[in-house]
């Protein structure tokens, strides 16, 4: 196994060129470096080196829905997309509401070795919105859970939300709220507007999201807690967050790649690949989200990677499942929506997709390319433009809204803890990655 990798001629997020020497799982040196004997050399001329991407919002489906995704296949999708850390949402079966489940997911992630898998704990038991789950036990477990979310469902009970915010602040945890008023969105199918009325699909009003966010930022202010809002999708939500931040409320906000690129017009096809929660919105919402990313109102981009088996999508719209896979396409979509449009630079991408999500999730040591840091590095080629294809997907499910769509850039290499998980665009085989991961953890113990 090659332990030492020299990346030559990479463009760092700030724009400067540098070689990067990786050995023993960490970044040893930056600058102009001569190749050490026996090292693997990666020619990164023309490639952007980003700190390994961190996804605060991934659905890995295991345990319980292994026909859609497993921790292994989901982390392979992560590697294909340049992610080295992923936060696994709690809506599994059983729900990740106990220390046992989160430790299981943690172990599966470590065995797979493609990425750091950090479980997210459920806020309420069984995601039922009635009683708090074993938040403390999960926080103090081997998985050291710091992010709690009922994602897929909204913590809609105001008192429960208040208690959850207060409770997790005892160990600097954070509640990631899926903002969706349940009564206003009963049987809802797509963004509410003249298009939903024309298509005869039940509307999902923007206010169902905005009203929950408004309530929650006020609750967070009241109890002095930290709050994270998942997948903002409307211009109104942006306004509420902007207002909250101006007041000094400790809120962070996330947007998904798909809400930055796609609009409700796609629903005209009734193709359920475009069915997602929250729904695709209008052009003006997409533009507002992009502007909010550019001005810092929105802190991070997270994929909300949500795999589903084909039968859940190849059906009538009403019966189809919500969600789209997003890990493999995320960076290309971000480049297409934000970089190519000159709204952000690669430095911002590194912040939005690595440093800040790592900070929100309590992931220590991640998010920067510097000597001494763990060697989590993504090498991205921004010069390409190609039609996104099913062969670009590495997870178990193919419910991508981008199939057949032209996207910019492609991830060429992903290094996690100093070993390759994506090598020249190909996902490194599972047994090779697992062996690298084992070797790395033994070395860690030896030191």
């Amino acid at each position, binding site marked *: 196994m090659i332990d030492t990798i020299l990346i030559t001629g990479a463009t760092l997020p700030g724009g400067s060129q540098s070689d990067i020497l990786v050995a023993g799982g960490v970044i040893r040196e930056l600058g102009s470096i001569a190749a050490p004997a026996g090292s693997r050399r990666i020619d990164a001329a023309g490639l952007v080196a980003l700190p390994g991407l961190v996804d605060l919002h991934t659905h890995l489906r295991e345990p319980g829905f292994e026909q859609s995704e497993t921790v292994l296949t989901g982390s392979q999708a992560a590697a294909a997309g340049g992610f080295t850390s992923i936060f696994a949402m709690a809506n599994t079966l059983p729900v990740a509401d106990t220390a046992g489940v989160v430790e299981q997911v943690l172990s599966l992630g470590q065995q797979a070795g493609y990425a750091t898998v950090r479980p997210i704990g459920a806020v309420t038991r069984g995601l039922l919105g009635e009683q708090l789950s074993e938040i403390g036990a999960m926080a103090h477990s081997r998985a050291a859970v710091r992010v709690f979310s009922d994602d897929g469902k909204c913590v809609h009970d105001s008192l429960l939300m208040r208690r959850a915010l207060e409770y997790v602040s005892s160990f600097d945890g954070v509640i990631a709220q899926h903002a969706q008023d349940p009564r206003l969105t009963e049987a809802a199918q797509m963004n*509410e507007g*003249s298009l939903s009325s024309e298509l*005869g*699909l039940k509307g999902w009003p923007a206010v169902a999201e905005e009203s929950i966010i408004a309530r929650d930022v006020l609750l967070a202010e009241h109890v002095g807690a930290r709050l994270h809002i998942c997948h903002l999708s409307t211009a109104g939500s942006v306004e509420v967050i902007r207002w909250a931040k101006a007041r000094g409320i400790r809120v962070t906000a996330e947007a998904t790649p798909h809400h930055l690129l796609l609009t409700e017009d796609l629903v005209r096809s*009734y193709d359920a690949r475009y069915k997602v929660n929250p729904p695709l919105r209008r052009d003006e919402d997409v533009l507002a989200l992009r502007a909010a990313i550019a001005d810092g109102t929105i802190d991070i981009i997270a994929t909300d990677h949500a795999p589903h088996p084909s*039968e859940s999508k190849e*059906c009538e*719209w*009403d019966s189809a499942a919500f969600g789209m896979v997003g890990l493999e396409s995320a960076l290309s979509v971000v480049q297409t929506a934000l970089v190519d449009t000159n709204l952000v630079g690669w430095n911002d991408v590194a912040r939005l997709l690595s440093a800040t999500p790592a900070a929100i999730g309590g992931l220590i040591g991640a998010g920067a390319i510097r000597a001494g840091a763990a060697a989590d590095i993504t090498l991205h080629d921004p010069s390409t433009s190609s039609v996104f294809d099913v062969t670009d997907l590495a997870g178990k499910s193919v419910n991508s809204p981008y199939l057949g769509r032209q996207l910019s850039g492609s991830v060429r290499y992903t290094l996690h803890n100093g070993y390759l998980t994506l090598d020249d665009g190909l996902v490194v085989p599972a047994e090779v990655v697992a062996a690298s991961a084992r070797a790395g953890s033994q070395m860690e113990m030896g030191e």
Partner: protein
Amino acid sequence: MRHLLSTKNLSRDEAILLLDIAEDMSDTQLREVKKLPTLRGKTVVNLFFEDSTRTRVSFEAAAKRLSADVINFSAKGSSVSKGESLKDTAQTLAAIGADGVIIRHAASGAPQRLAESRWIDAGILNAGDGTHEHPTQALLDAFTMRRRIHGDASRGKDLDGISVAIVGDITHSRVARSNLWLLRTLGAHVTFVAPATLIPFGAAEWPATISYDLDQTLSEGRPDVVMLLRIQAERMDAAFFPNEREYSRWWGLDDERFAAMRSDSIVMHPGPMNRGLEISSTAADSAQSTVLEQVTNGVSVRMAALYMLLAGEREGA
């Protein structure tokens, strides 16, 4: 025409052609021998995921009068209700050799999904999907209006300048939507009349006048056509309106309102009617009412639609 999924994409010429062919079909329905050999050897499937005997029988009569073989595939009590997917059902029908599929489905867009999937190659005819569209109902309504207005000289005519008030649960009505798009294409002016809860969200962006006041619409607009929609009792439970009495008081075509209407105006209802709720018996049974004509015309219009879809050379095949 490959499929008939909505009226939104019908051009004026296509719509008039379809109505004209329906006139010719209608003539044949006055003869002793009503059956035409046109679709001999073609197989038409009535794929009904929702119960609607009226619509199914109308399509069945239309297909049979064109000599098609008709298979009724009712989803209730079949494998479909036991979880078989739309895709599997479609592939089964393809394997049977269906040339045309008439689909009624509670999910909006299910017919379009069938038409645009590769599951089945048949011509797809939307017989009502969710709260989306019901194109043959709109076509038979337009046909009925045109006949009442132009009589024997209907062929080739549109509905330019005709004013139509559609009253009732617009929000949940596929009939209202299909009528709006078609009537606009044919040059008519449409007013939706309902309480705000039953006007679709965002309908202000549609090419219709919105009214919350039936009396005002009747007295000021003096519409040529008043079309009442069926009110479903379950809407009350979801807080769309307080109760039946209040609904019929403000939005029902009662005797008093009917008496105040122009004597040459037309009263329409797609059926089945709630007499005494959205329409009074006096209005429903009057000479101005076209309720039964609509049923008769339904067969002719559906014959025309089936002819357009299934008789000619297969487009894009």
